[in-house]
């Protein structure tokens, strides 16, 4: 699905990612944990093609293609989804229009006919029911005036609509109450299949009670310093990151 080899990236001359290696196979869920400033969000941004990041070295292959060669929209259309840590507001653009454009762009890329209004609304209703979402949410402007929890749920809703091959959840759990957390987890688990993979970037192990990862990686100072099974998350929760830092010295 995704292979990252020796990826180095910098922002304004400052190196943030210092040689990342990661292999994600279809159907796997990987958690990436680490202290603030370790480079977790940068990894998500670099993979999704955000501007402002300089790739110094390394290669990333996504579904057999050179990911770094693709425009951000083509990465998305090929099935890479980023759930934003801070979802962006777009005043005056109804969520339903935004999503319809998005879904149909994805379909066009795959050579499929656009969904009719009826088909689209039906799909939207199914996904909203699945996630127990407030039905008014889709009539409002994209993220405008949404509460923190609503914004995160809205990210997961978009993910459910687009059914990406690889979803990257960038601290989707931060600031969520237990109910919202459950919605997020349900969304991810509903997508779980042998064809779909997920990267969960998180600070806390709490989300991993609901989304059980196959692998846990610790990102520290721009490198993955430790990888193990799900038990690593519990260990981190208990001992904090200092333990890792000490181990490295």
């Amino acid at each position, binding site marked *: 699905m995704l292979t990252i080899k020796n990826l180095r990236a910098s922002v304004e001359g400052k190196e943030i990612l210092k040689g990342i290696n990661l292999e994600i196979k279809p159907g796997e869920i990987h958690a990436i944990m680490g202290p603030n400033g370790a480079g977790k969000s940068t990894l998500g941004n670099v993979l999704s*093609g955000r501007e402002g990041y300089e790739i110094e070295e390394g290669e990333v292959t996504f579904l057999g293609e050179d990911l770094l060669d693709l425009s951000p*929209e083509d990465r*998305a259309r090929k099935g890479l989804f980023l759930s934003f840590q801070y979802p962006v507001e*777009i005043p005056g653009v109804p969520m339903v229009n*935004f999503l319809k*454009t*998005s879904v149909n*762009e994805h379909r066009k890329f795959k050579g499929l006919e656009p969904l009719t209004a009826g088909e689209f609304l039906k799909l939207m209703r199914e996904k909203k029911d699945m996630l127990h979402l407030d039905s008014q949410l889709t009539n409002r*402007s994209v993220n405008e005036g949404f509460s923190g929890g609503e914004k995160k749920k809205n990210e997961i809703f978009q993910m459910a609509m*687009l059914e990406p091959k690889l979803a990257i959840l960038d601290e989707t759990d931060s600031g969520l109450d237990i109910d919202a957390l459950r919605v997020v987890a349900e969304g991810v688990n509903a997508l779980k299949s042998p064809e779909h993979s997920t990267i969960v970037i998180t600070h806390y192990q709490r989300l991993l009670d609901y989304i059980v990862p196959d692998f846990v990686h610790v990102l520290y100072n721009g490198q993955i310093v430790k990888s193990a099974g799900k038990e690593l998350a519990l260990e981190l929760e208990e001992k904090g990151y200092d333990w890792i830092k000490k181990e490295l010295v």
Partner: protein
Amino acid sequence: MEEQDKILHEVTSKEYEFGFSSDFDMDTIPKGLNEDVIRVISAKKEEPEFMLNFRLEAFRKWQKMTMPDWAYLKIPPIDFQEIIYYAAPKKKPQYESLDEIDPDLLETFNKLGIPLEEQKILSGVAVDAVIDSVSVKTTFKETLAEKGIIFCSFSEAVKEHPDLIQKYLGMSVPVTDNFFAALNSAVFSDGSFCYIPKGVKCPMELSTYFRINASGTGQFERTLIIADDDSQVSYLEGCTAPMRDENQLHAAVVEIIALDRANVKYSTVQNWYPGDKNGKGGVYNFVTKRGICRGESSKISWTQVETGSAVTWKYPSCILMGDNSVGEFNSVALTNNYQQADTGTKMIHIGKNTKSTIISKGISAGKSDNAYRGLVKVMPGASNARNFSQCDSLLLGSNCGAHTFPYIEVANKSSIIEHEATTSKIGEDQIFYCNQRGISTEDAIGMIVNGYAKEVLNKLPMEFAVEAQKLLQISLEGSVG
């Protein structure tokens, strides 16, 4: 709607036939302006004496006036003696086929979804088929005539309804109003006239599209709309297709008179040639538009989407004379490349309990400058006058400018005036958010801009609104690298 489309298509598929008598084969008169030129124009149009006097008075006043320089516009000096003030409509098409037309223009036509035959008309190409247009015109005219509505060219109205013209011409925009209005009054070529009788609700949107095809009356156009007591009309001007015009200077005047409880809605989409990417060429558009709510509880509402012209100088205004009268101004003005716009409105509150609302959305891209200029004036007798103004500016990139010049003059203590203003920039994070959902940057900008302008676009008649949305997007193409 289908019927209307058919009429529209067929009416626009034929040669311009109103206003000019076919006897005049002489195409133009020499350039320059003096009293003789004005007499010739009036004579060619076989106008009654009061029209000639109107023109001459305007010309004499104009000679003593100077071009206004208070707008936030850089305009090279204009030599008014270098302009040809009368040209008969061109009968012959300029081109033989669409192959001779600028491919960029055709590309834009296609993006706007304009049918092939209409493309030909808009770009001045010969049209082959004219199908039964006489009956179409008759149907259209009959529907209006049944209700007593007059909708015709200005020249025709001068001949057929001189009493109405004499009574109302210059009522909203006196000849001395401003430099460009005076010039227009002296030399205007043609335009539209519309009268809605007492108690009549006009059954269809009246569109200049119906009446004028591409052969330009464009340069000095004159429009007069009179809505009698308890009448209602919605009027559409312009079209979304880019209009090429060899005339660089445009100075139009639109006057609206609303009598007791009349309701007039005037919608414009202006897309004159804006010049090329380097700011070469393009139309200078100096427009005076004013409505007067003479009657009590009357209402005039201006809605405009301005995307064209190299220079736009335009302030559609309302004089709220009648008690309880209402004025509205809704505007989207978009400038790109080297375009300049100084546009806004004046709301003059004279009657009691008068209300006005101003919503202005400026969008600047490229190296353009976009200014909002507005006046809200409350006269001493306008008790309980109420105004709400909202002026928003959106910037794309960092080489463009947005400016706001609101003037408020209040002479009555019982009035309430509110003014809100915002300036924002399309964020890279907004565009990236759309990209990450599979939406291209160009589509993202179109979407964001249309969301921003939605409040105004919603005020346009349905079919116009859809076209205006596409137009905003197309006008911004290439504005983000």
